[in-house]
């Protein structure tokens, strides 16, 4: 806000800076999500035995590393002002390719490359449809969703188990300490997170992504490579969906056409709860990561509660979405 001259108001300055951070549309929702996570974690610790521990957090990471990767890709798309409805289906396609590829005897490396290349190519096609033919992202990614889901069924109707030694070794927990373990997937997801943060915050491509979400026309007038960036954003989302599918197949050691139904909703919810504005232009990947943890924590708490039925998860997530969307609305309209 205004600069503060009087020395006695150092406290006031801290307060004003804090309120500033909390009411800014840029950082406010992220901070609220962070607070919410801490409050939920502490409240859960008070209420349930054995909840307040590093094990809970690590378990969250193990169970939701695939969602984290999905949310990373989705963040790029949403920050650029688009949306990607295909991520859940592409994730399923990726698990199916993995399982089927290994079943017919392809080496794991080939399978992994095949998955990442094909999902990125799908993303590229979607990006080109959106950019060259000016088709709304909603419709283009919807078509991609149908295509990916349909291909899943064509490749394999039934669930295929994965017995490949490399994949099974990836599913093994890495012991960090007593009752503390993670999997290789967690490391992969965290590396992806670090790369995504770096790309979005410190590269020209990242800044162009924000610029497109903030105002495509202004970006064009500034001479930014809008077309290239818009296509690349969907390539990234496709790549992330493929990677997420890979992590999912490490986690479940199977490929199934019906995995990840509604995965796009979870990813979008995580991104919104993580403070990214759905109109684009604002948001942090780290916020999306927090969003994933909050979603996971809700699920964990409902499991710990024991008496609540699973459908409450959906209602809670819906309510949380509502709160965050209204919060974003209030914050942005105040600044506008």
């Amino acid at each position, binding site marked *: 806000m205004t600069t503060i001259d009087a020395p006695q108001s150092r406290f006031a300055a801290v307060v004003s800076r804090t309120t500033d951070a909390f009411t800014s549309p840029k950082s406010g929702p992220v901070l609220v999500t962070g607070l919410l996570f801490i409050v939920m974690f502490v409240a859960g610790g008070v209420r349930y035995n054995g909840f307040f521990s590093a094990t809970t957090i690590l378990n969250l990471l193990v169970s939701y590393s695939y969602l984290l990767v999905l949310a990373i890709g989705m963040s790029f798309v949403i920050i650029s002002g688009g949306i990607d409805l295909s991520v859940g289906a592409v994730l399923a396609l990726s698990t199916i390719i993995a399982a089927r590829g290994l079943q017919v005897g392809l080496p794991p490396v080939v399978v992994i490359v095949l998955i990442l290349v094909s999902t990125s190519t799908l993303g590229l096609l979607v990006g080109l449809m959106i950019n060259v033919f000016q088709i709304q992202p909603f419709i283009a990614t919807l*078509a991609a969703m*149908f295509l990916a889901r349909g291909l899943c069924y064509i490749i394999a109707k039934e669930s295929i188990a994965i017995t490949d030694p490399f994949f099974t070794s990836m599913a093994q927990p890495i012991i960090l300490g007593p009752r503390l373990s993670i999997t290789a997937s967690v490391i992969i997801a965290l590396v992806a997170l670090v790369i995504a943060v770096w790309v979005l915050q410190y590269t020209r491509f990242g800044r162009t992504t924000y610029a497109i979400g903030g105002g495509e026309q202004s970006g064009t007038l500034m001479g930014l490579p809008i077309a290239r960036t818009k296509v690349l954003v969907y390539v990234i989302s496709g790549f992330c969906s493929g990677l997420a599918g890979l992590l999912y197949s490490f986690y479940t050691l199977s490929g199934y056409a019906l995995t990840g139904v509604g995965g796009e909703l979870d990813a979008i919810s995580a991104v919104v709860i993580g403070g990214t504005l759905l109109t684009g232009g604002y948001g942090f990947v780290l916020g999306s990561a927090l969003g994933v943890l909050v979603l996971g924590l809700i699920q964990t708490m409902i499991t710990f509660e024991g008496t609540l039925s699973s459908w409450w998860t959906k209602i809670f997530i819906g309510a949380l*979405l509502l709160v965050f969307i209204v919060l974003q609305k209030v914050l942005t309209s105040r600044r506008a």
Partner: protein
Amino acid sequence: MKDIFFKVIGHRLFWPLVMLVVLIAINVINVPGFLSITVNAEGNLFGSLIDILRNGAPTLIIAVGMTLVIATRGIDLSVGSLCAIAGAMACSIILTSPDPNNVGTVAVAVLVALALALVLGLWNGMLVSVLGIQPIIATLILMTAGRGIAMLITEGQILTVQSTPFKFLGSGFIYGVPFATVVAAVVLALVALLTRRTALGMLIESVGINPEASRQAGVRARGLLFLVYGLCALLAAVAGIILTSNQTAADANNTGLFIELDAILAVVLGGTSLNGGRYSLTGTLVGALVIQTLITTVYTVGIPPIATMVFKAAVVVAVTLLQSPTTNAALERWRSRPKPTKTSSRPSEPVVAR
């Protein structure tokens, strides 16, 4: 002659209609009796075309509501969940009543389900118009939470009902025509009358084309938004009840799953832009028919039904690419290229002006 050709090609319903004709042609080639409609012993119409009209009814009913929502530059993702909620509500009322076969019971159940959906639709309208939340996000909330609410109503069970009047809603016939088809036709006709014979349709379009200008012209967008989201939810509930009655069971997880996508697709195929403004209910009808014919085609041609989605993707891509501004601009360039002069002995190919 050429002008007429381009006028026909440029019409927004040209490609969807071509698609429809092609699909029907494929069916006729594969199943010679495809176009025939017979009357069975009970005096009811039977035939593949009747099946298309009956099975496509729920999608069409929702797509009609969706058309109006999209015309206001909105979108309603929650219709699938609303289908599930309405079905769950109706079934749970019928199941708890002492006499499931009573027409009155079924009427009460249906009315309560419709009322509940209307309330939820107004909630969507409130989020969009009063709080000013983007429609895709505002309705995402109910899409996510809605299935949870439906499960809350069914208590996680699949509710199977044995009720003759209720079963009639999904699979009954009126004067030989499937009841679902009649409902869809009535809905389409009523909405068309309501919006095209009054200024309502124009007001809805004006809100979609330029909200600010229409506000300054004195159009009260708030009431219109409440109206379209409420109507869309109501129609979703109607479709949900038909779907549930057809399955004679309410399944909170699967009733109306992905139907929002089909409905939006029908609207877009019909030439209504997702950017709002001009809408075409005729187009939506064509779009819904294309989708349902496509599904039928997959069955009659003998392609495994599991591949339906790939074909749906192909059709969506083909039609949207053909309708896209880029393609139209390319066509326009081709149309307005300079005519080769006849006087020169060997006319060289004219360079297309860019």
